[in-house]
């Protein structure tokens, strides 16, 4: 290469290098030109321009790709926003390395908190969670960070700005760094209160919510009161008016149960007809109200008629209440049990019941009776007493009535007035009924082959409503009689109006079936109900039992004697036999005998006695 050529090439290189300096600002949009006739110099310029063009094209491609990616990100972000808005969930992102928590606006609004654009510490989150749920939340986070679980899935309560709380479902997932350590955890928070603490049908808070609130108050040593309310006439309202469902009644009930003076009450639905109202004693004191006042106002609210759905609705309620400061309460469940107990008493007594210490010992006795009754029924250790029934004029034995008795070694003799309501509440009436029936059939079998083998006697057994609702009741009774080889005519079943009210049609079918096979039927307590006469028309029976309330002192009471005479004449017209119950005085017996031929049951002629004694003490000549 000559010196001139060298010089020319050096010049080319310098020209190109100078022009390439323009790329300092990332400007590759330049055209390199050289002033040389030398082909190699031109080649170099050509290839530099070639390189620049390649750079430009690559940059254009990258920019185009970047724009496509940005569009894609925008599109996906927009979709994600739409999905999150649709789910109504809050979003959280926890940068573990920096210990920073980013929370979405929705996350704050779920807790009724103002939106804070700044990041928070994880402790802030923890403080919003109910103290009882924090441990569970911490454990779930720990498991996720350790890789023991792939997803975070934990439920907890968060306090809201209005002294309440809501249930949240928190879901999340961990992003790991190059060392497989959890670097970011992110996810959503879903409000699941509607599922957890609200009754779907009524929109009222449910029993779970009430329990949790009570538990919180007890834990925080806040004195509170609970009022349990049963609306006794919901069925009647629905039957008599045109409301399509009781769901339409719930808003009215809720309104009436929530408005007592200026108290902040929480009304919860416990069952289709039972509701609870919770409040704090501090508010009672502040408003100079007593628990009795609250109960009375609730009763008044419910009794107030209100024009709704073109109808006037008046709720008949039973109200039972408990105040935590009046009792030694250690656990929330105690208070809830006491509230139920107060309500049960209120329903039985037909008046408001405020639970006190005295009720606790009564409940204790009640629980003991229930437990022992259940045990006796399981061991078949319950034996009825039998009270003889005689023909009034001839004193001839007609039969007996089996009367449920509960004798216990430690409890002593428990009266039917005590144990029958307990059996009803405990759902033991079916077992109790069959137990007495079994004993009675066994007694009939024993007596018909013993001293009464030549005498046509019967034993009457009371039948409960729950037994008559059993579609197999008649079949069961007949099977038991057949199994014991006892004639159906030896058995008389006594039903009352209240027994029939539940489902008359079904009860009548069972009664007809029994009667067709020879079992006799007596209508017990006749005259005490509202529609005794209508039952006479629609129910096939054999005997009328005149209630003891008409018999007592009838010889001194013209109205009673007139009624009994009329009933007797009616029974005679209908070919029904008559039994007068509760005959205790000789004058009563004489008067009844003067009316006509009827059977007599009462202490005057016989007391209820255990089977052996009842048969031993039958006077000679009566059978």
């Amino acid at each position, binding site marked *: 290469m000559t010196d001139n050529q060298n010089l020319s090439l050096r010049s080319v290189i310098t020209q190109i290098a100078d022009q390439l300096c323009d790329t300092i600002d990332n400007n590759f949009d*330049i*055209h390199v030109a050289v002033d040389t*006739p030398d082909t190699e110099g031109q080649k170099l310029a*050509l290839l530099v*321009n*070639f*390189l620049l063009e390649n750079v430009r*094209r690559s940059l254009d491609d990258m920019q185009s790709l970047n724009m496509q990616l940005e569009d894609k990100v925008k599109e996906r972000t927009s979709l994600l926003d739409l999905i999150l808005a649709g789910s109504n969930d809050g979003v959280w992102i926890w940068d573990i390395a920096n210990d920073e928590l980013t929370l979405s606006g929705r996350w704050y609004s779920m807790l009724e908190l103002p939106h804070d654009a700044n990041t928070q510490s994880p402790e802030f989150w923890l403080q919003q969670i109910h103290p009882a749920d924090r441990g569970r939340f911490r454990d779930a986070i720990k498991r996720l960070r350790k890789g023991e679980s792939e997803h975070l899935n934990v439920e907890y309560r968060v306090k809201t700005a209005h002294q309440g709380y809501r249930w949240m479902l928190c879901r999340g997932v961990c992003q790991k760094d190059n060392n497989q350590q959890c670097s970011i955890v992110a996810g959503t928070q879903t409000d699941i209160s509607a599922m957890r603490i609200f009754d779907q049908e009524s929109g009222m808070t449910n029993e779970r919510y009430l329990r949790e609130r009570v538990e919180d108050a007890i834990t925080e040593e806040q004195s509170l009161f609970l009022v349990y309310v049963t609306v006794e006439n919901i069925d009647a309202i629905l039957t008599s008016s045109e409301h399509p469902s009781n769901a339409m009644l719930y808003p009215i009930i809720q309104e009436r149960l929530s408005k007592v003076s200026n108290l902040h009450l929480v009304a919860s639905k416990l069952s289709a007809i039972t509701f609870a109202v919770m409040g704090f004693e501090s508010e009672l004191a502040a408003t100079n109200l007593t628990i009795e006042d609250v109960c009375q106002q609730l009763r008044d609210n419910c009794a107030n008629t209100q024009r709704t759905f073109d109808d006037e609705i008046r709720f008949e309620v039973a109200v039972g209440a408990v105040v935590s400061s009046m009792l030694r309460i250690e656990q929330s469940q105690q208070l809830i049990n006491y509230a139920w107990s107060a309500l049960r008493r209120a329903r039985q007594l037909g008046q408001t019941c405020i639970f006190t210490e005295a009720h606790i010992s009564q409940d204790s006795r009640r629980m003991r009776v229930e437990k022992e009754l259940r045990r006796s029924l399981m061991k078949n250790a319950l034996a009825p007493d039998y009270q003889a029934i005689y023909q009034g004029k001839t004193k001839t034995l007609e039969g007996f009535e089996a009367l449920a008795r509960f004798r216990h070694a430690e409890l002593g003799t428990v009266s039917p007035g005590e144990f029958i309501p307990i059996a009803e509440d405990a759902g033991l009436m079916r077992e109790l009924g069959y137990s007495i029936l079994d004993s009675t059939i066994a007694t009939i079998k024993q007596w018909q082959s013993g001293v009464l083998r030549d005498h046509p006697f019967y034993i009457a057994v009371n039948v409960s409503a729950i037994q008559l609702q059993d579609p197999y009741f008649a079949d069961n009774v007949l099977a038991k009689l057949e199994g014991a080889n006892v004639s159906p005519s030896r058995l008389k079943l006594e039903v009352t109006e209240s027994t029939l009210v539940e489902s008359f049609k079904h009860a009548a079918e069972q009664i007809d079936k029994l009667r067709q096979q020879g079992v006799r039927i007596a209508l017990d307590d006749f005259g005490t109900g509202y529609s005794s006469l209508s039952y006479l028309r629609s129910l096939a029976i054999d005997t009328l039992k005149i209630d003891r309330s008409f018999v007592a002192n009838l010889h001194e009471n013209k109205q009673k004697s007139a009624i009994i005479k009329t009933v007797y004449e009616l029974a005679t017209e209908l070919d029904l036999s008559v039994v007068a119950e509760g005959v205790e005085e000789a004058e009563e017996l004489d008067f009844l005998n003067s009316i006509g031929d009827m059977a007599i049951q009462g202490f005057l002629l016989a007391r209820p006695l255990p089977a052996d004694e009842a048969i031993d003490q039958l006077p000679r000549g009566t059978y």
Partner: protein
Amino acid sequence: MIGIIQQVLLELLDQHGGNELKQRVLKAANVDPSINYRIDKNYSDDECLRLINAAVIETGLSETTVYQHYATAFLKKAQALFPRFFEIADDSEGFLLRQARIHAVMASGLKRQDERQHVNDKFTATSIEPGKVRVIYRSANGLCRLYQALAFEVAALYDDEIEFEEPCCMHQGAVHCEFLISWPNKRQEVACD
């Protein structure tokens, strides 16, 4: 067009017909007889076309023959100037796939900034499948037969056998020319695999 194209043509004329033929062609094409085409500069397409037409007329050869001679000379010159482009490609398929981009980038690179706007690449080449390449040629110059001659010359350079089809041609009224170049031996190999 990049000056190398005209430079190769004039060198070829000079080589086969001497300076006298070269000057006749320059004159017939109405180009400055003293012109020295530079390889790092763009020249007008129209001028180039005039030179090619004049070369066909003045040599008395058929257009195809002129293209064949030109293709041989052009590749020889290109290989001498840019041997690396030829080394990078394993075979003629690889080269022709790159050729479109080399041509486009080189041509565009030599244009000034304002000339680059709204100029589309004349060539695009895509692989349809192994052993088959589609080339789209969308220049108003209509030098599709020159491209065909060059394609066969490239194949010969790599000792490859190709089949060349032109299902669309601007001379037939199409918006662009389309070349389908196949390497039957290579496709058989693929089929055997």
